[in-house]
């Protein structure tokens, strides 16, 4: 029941908003739909906590501790993003950057995107997961090009083609997985694609085929995660689209993609009984961290800067999952949560800052604090949080990852530390003058939505100081599940 509401609400919402998305009440309707989705996600979480894993629709969907927390996170961030997008899109319309058709497209596709991500997270069927991931890309391509500027068209084209080719590799990987599973589970009733069934027989799957499958799956879904060197689409798509979309792309889509990679890794590792998947994840992860840290220095556009920071954090998460083991997985899950919350909060603040200054170029945004202390402090605190300053949650997860790395992969620790330091200097040096000093900003016709910013930051702060016991249990369960215990 809760589960049905979770998927039906956004899909129905997308249909409704496709017709009424340009009306005055459309932003509120968008929020209302997200509220329903979030309520369903909460109800589902309560049920999973009390009853354990559940399956639905003839085992095509399943909820376990790993994906239920991502479902809640996705619903929560998408709700807050819809709150933020309410004044943001109003201002964009008044500035004449968006007309009524574009507003309809925006609201409808926003809900469709959320629906696609929720399906990708909850499905038990590896084929359906692929279909949903592709749907998530397709629903956002036209949002990246919403402003129809030359650079947004370029970003959209890159996004479409690179992710399309990437996801085609993932399809090939899925086919190989099916080929390997079919001989064990049989072709009837699709059980050969169901993750729970595959997980049960992973020891019998043919290692040679599965290792090949994993290479394709990692490259395919890795493109969507934004792992270097497959990350080229990511900064463009984040920088050129409307800011609410950047927030959900960075905060949610990347998480969903890494979720897909981890699901595949669990299967393949169980079959191979070697650490090839782990090493590949660690390699891609480290490369992303280092590359992103240095590319951060060359950015002038604030949203591109944040996009590279996302690549860096995805690298850290991939590295942590690559190390494996209960502690590293716990840290990676925590990092997924706090990154998602913090990064979307920064995007919210940046969205309003860019509207106030009329530009996304960092050199032209100055002295946010004078005109709007809340936007300024939101940006400053968010930046400190994402850079891993205590007492925020990112510090806790990065600390855990680094200490685990010292024990398990000591060679990687200096590389990680250096990259984190480089990133710190690059981002802090840029953001500091944006917040303090003389201002160039102007007032906005609608008051900015700052509740989401501070709600996210407060949660991140809480996760840094204290993780509630049920949340910790939940992470631990998921971490053990991923470690294959």
């Amino acid at each position, binding site marked *: 029941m809760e589960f049905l509401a979770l998927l039906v609400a956004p899909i129905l919402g997308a249909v409704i908003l496709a017709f009424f998305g340009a009306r005055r009440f459309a932003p509120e309707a968008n929020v209302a739909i997200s509220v329903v989705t979030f309520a369903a996600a909460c109800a589902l979480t309560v049920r999973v906590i009390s009853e354990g894993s559940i399956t639905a629709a003839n085992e095509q969907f399943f909820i376990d501790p790993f994906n239920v927390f991502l479902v809640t996170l996705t619903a929560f961030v998408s709700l807050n993003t819809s709150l933020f997008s309410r004044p943001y899109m109003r201002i964009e319309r008044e500035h004449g950057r968006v007309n009524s058709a574009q507003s309809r497209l925006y609201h409808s596709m926003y809900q469709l995107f959320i629906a696609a991500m929720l399906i990708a997270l909850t499905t038990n*069927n590896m*084929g*359906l997961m*692929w*279909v949903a991931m*592709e*749907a998530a890309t*397709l629903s956002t*391509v*036209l949002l990246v*090009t919403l402003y*129809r*500027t*030359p*650079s947004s*068209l*370029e*970003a*959209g*084209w*890159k996004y*479409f*083609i690179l992710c*399309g*080719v990437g996801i*085609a590799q993932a*399809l*090939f990987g*899925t*086919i*190989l997985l*099916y*080929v*390997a599973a*079919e*001989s064990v589970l049989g*072709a009837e009733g*699709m059980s*050969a*694609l169901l993750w729970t069934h595959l997980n049960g027989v992973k020891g019998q799957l*043919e290692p*040679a*085929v599965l290792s*090949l499958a994993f290479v394709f799956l990692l490259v395919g879904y890795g493109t969507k995660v934004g792992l270097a060197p497959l990350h080229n689409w990511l900064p*463009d798509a984040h920088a*050129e689209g409307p800011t609410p979309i950047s927030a959900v792309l960075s905060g949610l889509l990347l998480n969903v993609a890494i979720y897909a990679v981890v699901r595949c890794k669990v299967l393949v590792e169980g079959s191979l009984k070697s650490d090839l998947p782990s090493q590949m994840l660690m390699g891609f992860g480290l490369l992303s961290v280092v590359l992103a840290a240095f*590319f951060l220095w*060359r950015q*002038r*556009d604030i949203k591109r800067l944040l996009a590279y920071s996302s690549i860096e954090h995805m690298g850290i998460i991939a590295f942590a999952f690559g190390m494996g083991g209960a502690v590293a997985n716990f840290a990676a899950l925590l990092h997924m949560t706090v990154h998602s919350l913090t990064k979307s909060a920064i995007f919210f603040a940046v969205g309003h800052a860019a509207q106030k200054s009329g530009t996304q170029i960092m050199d032209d945004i100055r002295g946010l604090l004078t005109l709007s202390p809340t936007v300024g402090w939101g940006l400053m605190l968010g930046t400190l949080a994402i850079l891993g300053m205590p007492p925020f949650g990112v510090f806790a997860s990065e600390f855990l990852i680094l200490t685990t790395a010292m024990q398990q992969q000591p060679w990687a620790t200096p590389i990680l530390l250096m990259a984190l330091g480089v990133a710190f200097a690059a981002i802090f040096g840029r953001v500091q003058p944006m917040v303090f000093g003389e201002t160039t900003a102007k007032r906005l016709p609608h008051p900015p939505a700052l509740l989401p910013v501070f709600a996210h930051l407060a949660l991140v702060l809480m996760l840094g100081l204290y993780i509630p016991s049920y949340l910790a249990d939940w992470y631990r369960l998921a971490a053990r599940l991923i470690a294959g215990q």
Partner: protein
Amino acid sequence: MSNSSIDLQLLNAFASLLLLLSFAMLSQRRIVTMVKLLAMQGMLLGLATLLLAVRTGQNHLYISAALTLSLKALFMPWVLHRLIKRLGVYWDSEPLLNITVTMLAGLLIVIFSFGLAQPIAEFANTATRSAIGIAVAVVLLAFLTMITRGKAMSQVVGFLSMENGLFFGAMSASYGMPMIIELGVALDVLVAMLVLGVFFFQIREQFDSLDLHHLEKLREEK
């Protein structure tokens, strides 16, 4: 089945024709011809699926064959033709690599693909497993086509040819994916075509051309 060896030979002939078409696409600069080649590829894929359906008697393969023939051999090429006419893009710009080098690279790719497909072919228990190498080659050749082309339209043709290769791979390795997945993939590809159509008009409205050289502004120096 008494005529099984003829079946098999016919299937292998289809597979080699698919590969041949991929090479033809790689060397072709006329976009209209590329779309024709793509339609032929779709047709062959559909016929191969039909043959397999008759051979194995699996019902879902009939549906899959009908879907492939109607979508990949007729509908999509038709849409692409209309787009080409309305947008007036008939020729691709000079390829990034000259044809000879591209063809040589293509040859290497085929050898590599057969190496890559070796473990899968050994493991798969279908009669058509020898064709898996060809499927991989079609995918990678389509990839090469996409890399070496400058026009948006030819990249899309390459992309669809890649999809053809993937379907052929699924078919020869395991007689196709479960029906619902094939339907899902087909739906995604259809929506992708729709998005592309919209996208092309946006690009043209903005640049008066579909040449991707206009889309190279977002560099890191920016």
